[in-house]
């Protein structure tokens, strides 16, 4: 059965690594729902957040293929309830007159969005949240005339700090561990079950 997974990957910031990672998906005819990449707070290390719908029996094999790529520091997958996630959206809304502008701003205020930019002809509303929140906002603003709309891919933080730190150890300043430790570092969850 297909489930939604948020895959978090930490990599070195190298040419072509993005390409190598996307090949893993395209080779399996898997559509990427969203992909966000940017450098982390550490220089030279990138963080990928990839959302896909994938067969629950095959996800582990897919993750292992990504783990194999040279330059990938660690990778693991999460179901939606294991991560805190969201996305950001911008709405450029037409505001012909003062009343319209007031209404748009009121909607934004009610839904914890903010006015990020405004000119005489339009305002840009910035909204962060889950996909549903972003879409609801879109429907609410539609009557006023949406001139342009964009939303980002998902970004996510792992809820279980212990689990995250087990993986993140691998990019610690010490660099390397013994082979024994390394098996667990590459995939801490592997040590939990003998049969896998």
């Amino acid at each position, binding site marked *: 059965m297909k489930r939604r997974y948020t895959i978090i990957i930490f990599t070195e910031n190298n040419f072509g690594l993005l390409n190598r990672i996307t090949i893993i998906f395209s080779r399996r005819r898997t559509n990427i729902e969203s992909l966000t990449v940017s450098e982390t707070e550490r220089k030279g290390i990138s963080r990928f957040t990839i959302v896909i719908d994938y067969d629950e029996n095959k996800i582990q094999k897919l993750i292992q*293929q990504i783990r194999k790529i040279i330059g*990938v520091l660690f990778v693991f997958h999460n179901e939606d309830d294991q991560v805190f996630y969201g996305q950001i959206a911008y709405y450029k809304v037409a505001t012909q007159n003062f009343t319209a502008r007031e209404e748009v701003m009121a909607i934004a205020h009610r839904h914890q969005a903010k006015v990020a930019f405004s000119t005489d002809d339009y305002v840009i509303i910035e909204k962060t949240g889950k996909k549903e929140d972003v879409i609801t906002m879109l429907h609410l603003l539609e009557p006023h005339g949406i001139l342009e709309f964009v939303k980002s891919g998902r970004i996510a933080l792992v809820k279980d700090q212990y689990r995250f730190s087990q993986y993140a150890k691998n990019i610690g300043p010490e660099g390397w561990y013994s082979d024994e430790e390394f098996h667990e570092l590459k995939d801490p969850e592997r040590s939990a079950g003998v049969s896998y």
Partner: protein
Amino acid sequence: MALITEKATKKLYDHPLHHDHEAENILTKETDQVVSGSEAVILSLIEEGVDTIFGYPGGAIMPIYDALFHYREQLNHVLVRHEQGATHAAEGYAQMAKKPGVCFATSGPGATNLVTGIADAMLDSVPIVCITGQVAEPYLGTDAFQETDVMSLAMPITKWCYQIANPDEIPYIIAKAFYIARSGRPGPVLIDITKDAQFKEMSVPFTYEKRKQIKGYKPASAPREKDIAKAAELLNSAQRPFLFAGHGVLLSEAQAELKTFVEKTGVPVAGTLLGLSAFPSEHPLYVGMLGMHGNYGPNVLTNQADVIVAVGMRFDDRVTGNLERYAKQAKVIHIDIDHAEISKNVPATVGIIADAKAALNELIPQVQERTHDAWLAEFAKCHEEEYQKVIQHDFTAEAERIKMGEVVRMLSEKTNGEGVIVADVGQHQMSAARYSTFNKTDSWLTSGGLGTMGYALPSALGAKMGAPDRDIYAIIGDGCFQMTIQELGTIAQTGQPVKIIVMNNNYLGMVRQWQELFFDNRYSFVELTNPDFITIAKGFGIDGHCCTHADDLSASLDQLINSEKSYLLEVTVEKEANVFPMVPSGAGVDQIRLE
């Protein structure tokens, strides 16, 4: 000018090449501490211990070839006739010499011609390092003459690839490439170097340091204790254990450990196609080959074993057949250095992510000394059945034409099973795999995963150069031979003695067999009108003759074996013979057909 550290200067000065007064061109470099990118490539290769390069020059790699000219005493360059030949030769070389093979090619068509061989090395885990020229950096992305995006082409078929546009990176990247190619699960690596980076001088003095680790990559080597304990426990209580020896045994050079382990535990051993010669085929515990055209016993009894120990193999679909019917009753102990192979196709009860040698060494003290005579007797029974129905018929000519099995068996007998067999792809490959005797390890090369027709001829040349003291016998079909026949020129030019047997049935035999069995005898474009191979070989300066009658086979093989130089023996074999046993596509291993 960047900093010249004391260490760097000293190292450069101590470089053996700078004291070689024989090579006049090097003398001029003695006081010159700055080298060009192309010279840095050559110096790096020498530092890495490379002695042989297979390649083909062209526009974008000419600076490197110019640098190579000055070092032609240290580096032996083999001019192939097609870049695909260079990759296969490098594969053969790598497998016999136990170190990465090296290829040179130019940009554009040179690089695209490498693709087949690189993909072959990827699937068969062969360490090769390919260096391609590229158009100068300002021309990248402009559709310049002979520009292709080699990086994007190489990405899915290499273990790692990198484009260099700054000459200072060259020593570091080449060291990294060799480390990646040979460590962990070996594989092909490609380095693309822009022409301006080859021309430009390095801004720092040349220094080279072999890599022992790199960030973002750490291959497993030692197994975990708890996995070993669990595996030993399973094996010690097994009633019908069965061991599969794969290519990993050869790659980690664990043949002696495997023999000790097997002799202690009494477990019967079967080889995969690429694992052949890892275990002596005359050994009482050796039961044959796995896979679609493997032996009857190993296939059928896979589904009766209670514990399967898979060492350095990946449960390829040609081994498993239908996975739904594969070894469902067995507990699987899977030893592989590649984490991603564990439970990929067949769920492992115990996964040991380690080098085969290290894992077997850990296992040996923990397993009990046992014998499994009744279980072995079942293999013997299966072998008897296979012998009656298949093997004995493969050895005796019925009509005027010779059988492939007979050629292979007679060659093995005459060479005492000590020659290196390099097989191409198809029916002759399966005959060679089934009927060759291996008394010596590292005696079998073939294209397994990719099934690349045309592999054998260039690979045999590479194998000879990688192991000059071994006798190399390439067994090739008439279809395969014509895919890389031009490499006869390379063989002739190097003067290396490569013995070539072409099994000619005027058919693409394996495809024809499938058409006969599964497509109602519709022989769709599989018949070949062949040229006179002997005349062609003679044109290249290689002697040979054609054997058409079974009575002449023995004398013909003697002539081939005793030839001091390369020799081509063409054998006209039975036209429409089929390879059996066979696990039909989509069937389970227990549904193997003997006829």
